């Protein structure tokens, strides 16, 4: 039972354009969401997070949107740069005190120069 789903395994975008990565979840108890970026042969690195009390969080070129009623979040990267080419994972937690995170399967983003 996949509680966190990233249905697009890959995405290609032209440099300078917007990249939109999507993530759906099924557990309505999730109240904290994070996005990680992963380069080959490296560990994931934290990108941006959002709490369920917000519907948007912005950090530079990265914005995460949360639609609780649809159980959907998305990561927008504007403008996209070749260095953004990586695998992006979304993760969710219910912050019940265990701070366990459920990860999606990832979306491989390729930004074309």
């Amino acid at each position, binding site marked *: 039972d996949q509680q966190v789903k990233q249905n697009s395994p890959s995405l290609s975008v032209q440099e300078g354009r917007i990249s939109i990565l999507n993530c759906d979840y099924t557990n309505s108890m999730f109240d904290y969401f994070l996005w990680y970026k992963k380069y080959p042969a490296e560990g*994931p690195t934290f990108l941006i*997070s959002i709490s369920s009390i917000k519907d948007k969080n912005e950090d530079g070129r990265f914005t995460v949107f949360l639609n609780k009623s649809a159980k959907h979040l998305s990561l927008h990267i504007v403008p996209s740069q070749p260095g953004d080419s990586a695998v992006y994972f979304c993760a969710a937690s219910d912050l019940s005190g265990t701070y*366990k995170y459920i990860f999606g399967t990832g979306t491989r983003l390729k930004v074309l120069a």
Partner: protein
Amino acid sequence: NAGVTQTPKFRILKIGQSMTLQCTQDMNHNYMYWYRQDPGMGLKLIYYSVGAGITDKGEVPNGYNVSRSTTEDFPLRLELAAPSQTSVYFCASSYQGTSYEQYFGPGTRLTVT
């Protein structure tokens, strides 16, 4: 400040052998985690610890053991290696205070043949 370090980077085991994957963090984080990532899949939580002396199972704990005798170290033990344990293993740590992001190590690529 090295962050999260993992050793070894690569290892090949024969079926039935045992080994310990080492993980150390120097950020004084209270929470530590072990994940495995299989090809094309997201990260699955194996075990986690909320502090020295306290550990708990994640999604896929079978075949693994952990201990947490100090804040800094969180080793993962494989007792009887099986081909199904071929994976990339990531250790992570976090400070459960005002932020919840996890910091990951570079990973250990393990092959069991």
